[in-house]
């Protein structure tokens, strides 16, 4: 510290010296700094969405067989033993399975029957004939209503009608409306040019549109809009079994005529819950048409009743050349509720059409290409139900049609909601194993990413 006044004064005056540097100084300093890493938000969202899809897929895939059995644990043969009671004698009946395709049935009343898969039917016949029935606990149908024929018909046709109310008075931006019909509210921004910032709010039938005078004169630059989409609904399948060929066949070349019992009738697939989620990208082509695409995960499912689950390997012939092998199968029957699941990765190519440029409502339609990630859908040949990866086509094609609208609220700006139906016109299963055309109807919501 200075004692002298001179030094103190010099210090005070010279420390206060401030000079403005030229801009190039900061530019040179900045050039020497390490590059700034901008947060890649979009990439993060994409990765998060991909992870979410993967987790859902993995969770669904975990339940490989889709074996849904309620109150009928005895139907499974994981322990390779089925127990029940003989109605006539009240004696316990146990069923044991050997390592081969053979199934052995033992009754405490005596006698045992060993045989192949074909012999199971014989057992049933014998049991029926001898009035000895093994009462098994029945599975409770997961969707009992779906078994209702009336509802089945409704879902099978999937003829959903979409009606959209047209706005009574269509407003065209290029034509001037009569002052009496529309009363715009004009707001002028103070301190700026009126021409460029005057805002006109005109309330139309189905949309609330706010545009500045400058925006009206100059059409906005069309950009790609990205966002996420999610939807939920129902799906079903139009199916028919493989043409010709035997039902039961433990090996190719030894066809055996199917002999299903009346009580062992399985149901046709019925509707079940479906959902989908993914990313979308769309761009306005002009005032009325918008191109929409993206990448979506789709989950389609149907439900059906089948018979007992047999945890034993099988080679099932569908015709003289088509054979499928599996580690387990289901018999004909209605004791087990089975869910056929389709996990797809879909690329839609849709075109949206608006009745008028100002309309918030639109119709959309177009094809989509899907890649079958996994399916456990049963293919059946009369009395045996089997699932195998070799039964499915991987590349699938669908047609989509639907309608939606842009949500009018300020908070939901850019969001869209609607309904979409899709019909897979290519068969999910290879023709040798039957034909399956899944179709669905879903309500969806689209949320654009914020800019």
């Amino acid at each position, binding site marked *: 510290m200075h004692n002298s006044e001179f030094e103190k004064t010099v210090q005070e005056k010279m420390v206060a010296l401030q000079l403005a540097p030229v801009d190039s100084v900061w530019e040179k300093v*900045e050039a020497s700094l390490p590059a700034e890493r901008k947060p890649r938000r979009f990439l993060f969202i994409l990765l998060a969405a991909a992870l979410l899809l993967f987790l859902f897929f993995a969770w669904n895939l975990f339940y490989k067989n889709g074996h849904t059995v309620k109150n009928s644990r005895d139907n499974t043969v994981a322990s390779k033993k089925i127990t029940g009671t003989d109605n006539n004698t009240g004696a316990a009946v146990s069923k044991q399975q050997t390592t081969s395709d053979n199934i052995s049935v033992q009754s405490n009343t005596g006698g045992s029957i060993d045989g192949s898969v074909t012999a199971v039917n014989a057992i049933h016949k014998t049991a029926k004939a001898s009035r000895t029935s093994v009462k098994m606990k029945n599975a409770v149908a997961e969707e009992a209503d779906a078994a209702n024929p009336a509802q089945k018909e409704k879902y099978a046709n999937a003829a959903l009608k979409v009606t959209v109310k047209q706005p009574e008075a269509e407003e065209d931006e290029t034509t001037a409306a009569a002052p009496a019909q529309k009363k715009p509210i004009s707001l002028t921004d103070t301190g700026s040019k009126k021409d460029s910032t005057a805002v006109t709010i005109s309330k139309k039938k189905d949309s609330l549109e706010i545009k500045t005078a400058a925006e009206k004169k100059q059409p906005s630059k069309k950009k790609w809009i990205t966002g996420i989409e999610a939807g939920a609904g129902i799906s079903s399948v139009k199916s028919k079994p493989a043409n010709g060929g035997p039902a039961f066949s433990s090996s190719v070349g030894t066809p055996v005529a199917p002999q299903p019992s009346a009580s062992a009738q399985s149901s046709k697939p019925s509707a079940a819950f479906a959902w989908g989620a993914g990313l979308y990208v769309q761009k306005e082509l002009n005032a009325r048409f918008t191109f929409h695409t993206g990448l979506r995960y789709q989950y389609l499912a149907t439900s059906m009743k089948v018979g007992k689950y047999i945890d034993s390997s099988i080679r099932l012939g569908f015709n003289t050349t088509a054979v499928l092998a599996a580690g387990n199968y289901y018999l004909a029957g209605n004791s087990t509720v089975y869910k056929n699941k389709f996990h797809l990765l879909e690329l839609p190519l849709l075109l949206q059409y608006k009745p008028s440029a100002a309309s918030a409502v639109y119709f959309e339609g177009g094809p989509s290409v899907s890649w079958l990630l996994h399916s456990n859908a049963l293919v059946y040949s009369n009395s045996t139900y089997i699932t195998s990866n070799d039964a499915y086509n991987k590349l699938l094609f669908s047609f989509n049609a639907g309608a939606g609208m842009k949500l009018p609220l300020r908070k939901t700006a850019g969001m869209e909601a609607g309904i979409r139906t899709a019909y897979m016109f290519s068969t999910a299963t290879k023709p040798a194993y039957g034909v399956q055309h899944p179709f669905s109807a879903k309500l969806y919501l689209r949320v654009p990413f914020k800019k």
Partner: protein
Amino acid sequence: MELDARLVKECLKNNRAAQKQLYECYAATMLGVCFRYTKSMADAEDVLQEGFVRVFKNLHQFRAEGELGAWIRRIMVTTALNYLKRNARYQHDLAFDKLEMHPVTGEDPAITLSTKELTSLVQQLPSGYQTIFNLHAVEGYSHVEIGAMLGISDGTSRSQYARARALVITWIKKYYSDNSKPQAYAQQ
């Protein structure tokens, strides 16, 4: 201080906006510091640029207990001294060895010059005098510290400072008497 700490934290994350804000906060003051040690604005800006590069490079060493401005000032002074040492234009003026010892004058005149005028006077000193004058009178370093920084004895620092001080006082008097700027000092 809390604001400085937050700013430093953001700068350490390589947040460009924060770095620019820190630069803009201290650039004007630090350019003044650099200008006092150099002979021209161009040289001062070179020192400023070099100084801020060092500031950002060593920002992780800043301890929040101290004042950020004081820490940056120390870096600027060090940068200025290094600049003078390696710059050929200043090197002959930094020769301290051959000058005679001069006692500090007892004069203590009042200074009514403006900051700019006073700075202009000090800039007329030879670089060696100018440096020591700034380090002692303005920055407040002791002659021992100055000796360590410049690699000279504290005695040399003292005598250099006395001579510089005497010259500045002479010029101030001359400035007052005939309102004319002094001639540039020529080393004998």
